[in-house]
């Protein structure tokens, strides 16, 4: 086993055997106590009971005594109830918004990484700017613009539109606009990094072999940026699935509720419904499990590549 040999060697040359684990210990203990145990608490509460006297959730820490009544109700609502509608809406919002991010974000990332020329640093600075502006501030800016007496309606009034719309009254397209606006920078950056890594020589080779610029793009650049596209999509889809603040701010209407809104409602706005909130969180995790695993694999591969 070469890895073991190497490990033994490091220990002889470097520190004694217990040194490295003891470096990791505080962090590992912290993550066990404040990530792993809380993660398990979601299941313990979802499968627990409700205390009849104090009317608050009573977690069941022993999986042999888990009670799936609440979870069953939530599943029932998911297949054929109101929750099913909300879940489908969430899926719809996330897919449409992600597709729009791809449509707008790809040309932007492509331009800044390959064609921006001398002013590249400035373009890069400008596409990075939203990173340092708080998401809530960016949403608040749109609430400003779209409010009944906001700049958008002022502008419409000056060009003579009557019947000014109330943009913030529960329109799907306004929420999707908010999601695209909010998350697109997080899509563009990893894609930019992956386009930027493509070796210029590969593209020259393609042209030397007779491909035009379109066919070079289609058959060389696009396939080489596949991982950047997938990575960017995963990075934006994960938080989008759990979003509740964007629909709340840009609509606030039950017609645009997402899964995150139901979780927010049962955890933050009531005290006795923790079990339902926990069960809904498990449903959300099932939705995003594939994305999480893909992302985990990507980070792991990047780490392994960096180690070599």
């Amino acid at each position: 086993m070469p890895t073991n040999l190497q490990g033994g060697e490091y220990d002889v040359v470097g520190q004694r055997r217990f040194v490295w684990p003891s470096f990791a210990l505080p962090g590992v203990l912290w993550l066990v106590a404040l990530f792993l145990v809380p993660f398990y608490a979601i299941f313990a509460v979802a499968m627990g009971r409700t205390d009849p006297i104090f009317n608050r959730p009573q977690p069941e820490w022993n999986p042999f005594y888990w009670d799936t009544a609440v979870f069953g109700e939530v599943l029932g609502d998911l297949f054929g109830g109101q929750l099913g509608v909300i879940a489908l809406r969430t899926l719809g919002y996330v897919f449409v918004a992600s597709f729009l991010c791809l449509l707008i974000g790809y040309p932007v990332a492509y331009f800044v990484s390959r064609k921006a020329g001398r002013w590249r640093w400035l373009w890069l600075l400008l596409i990075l700017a939203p990173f340092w502006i708080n998401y809530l501030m960016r949403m608040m800016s749109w609430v400003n613009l779209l409010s009944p007496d906001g700049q958008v309606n002022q502008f419409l009034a000056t060009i003579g539109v009557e019947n000014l719309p109330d943009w913030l009254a529960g329109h799907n397209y306004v929420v999707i606009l908010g999601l695209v606006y909010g998350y697109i920078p997080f899509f563009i950056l990893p894609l930019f990094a992956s386009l930027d890594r493509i070796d210029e020589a590969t593209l020259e080779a393609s042209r030397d072999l007779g491909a035009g610029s379109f066919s070079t793009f289609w058959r060389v650049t696009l396939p080489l940026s596949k991982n950047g596209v997938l990575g960017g999509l995963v990075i934006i889809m994960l938080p989008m699935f759990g979003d509740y603040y964007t629909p709340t701010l840009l609509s606030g209407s039950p017609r645009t509720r997402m899964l995150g809104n139901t979780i927010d409602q049962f955890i933050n706005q009531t005290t006795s419904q923790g079990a339902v909130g926990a069960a809904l969180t498990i449903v959300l995790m099932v939705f995003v499990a594939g994305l999480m695993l893909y992302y985990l694999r990507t980070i792991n591969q990047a780490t392994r590549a960096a180690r070599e």
Partner: protein
Amino acid sequence: MRSFLSNPWNKPRTLPLVTAMYILWSIVPVIIAIRFSFNAGRSRSTWQGFSTRWYLGTPEAAESVLYDPSLRFALNQSLKLALLTMLVATPIGIALAIGLARWRGRLAKPSNFLMLFPLVTPEIVMGVALFLVFDNLYDFVTFGTMAQFLGHVTFSISFVVIIVRGRLFAIGRDYEEAAMDLGASPSQAMRRVLFPLLMPAIFASLAIVFAISIDDFVISQFLVGGADSVTIPVRLYSGARLAPPPSLNALATVLMVVTIGAVTLGGLALKVFGRKSGDDESALETIGRFEI
């Protein structure tokens, strides 16, 4: 037209135009919001002249970031949390990065896996998890600053590990081994060789932990205790739809300036300590992993 059809991506005009429109769309709404934080009147859509009343104001009016208690508390709370988180998460993360990079024991792999998990878990899941565990198991943790601090450190540690570990791999073991060949003890080699080489990553971690903590909304909101633990993002969220005065825009602008300041400071430190280290790309990748 024919050449455009055969080659839509490479036309000199289309791409810069799309990019410029995108940048305008992404930045102009925020610039408008900043502009109206300097409005002399109460409106956030009709310009009534320049003033700093929403920033400084007077104690009697109590309508500015400086004198409106709810805005000022939010600013204090955000700064306090970000500083505390930065000071605690960075050392824990650095130690964890060194430990995980070099430890070959049986538990090393699961520990590494555990460290990666917070990076890929949606924040709302972490918020629910922490809320439920503080509510039902760790009864000694009170909601408010203490719970928020524990939550912020938890999601920050993994970012520090990723940043520091990248640098550790780049440095390798050669320098330390050379130091020990020249007679340094392992702990001397660490203190006098490894730590100075890690400086750029340490400064980058400090800046990034400060920035992600002060920018965080979901965890802060799930773990909020009362009016005194409302942070700036939580305050923006609760106030944005209630026809707020421009002081809310002023508060958001202050947050933006603080974030940019922290990142710039971190970047400067990186420049000073990280000459010729070629870390730019890995720094970009790390930024790319930010969620809100």
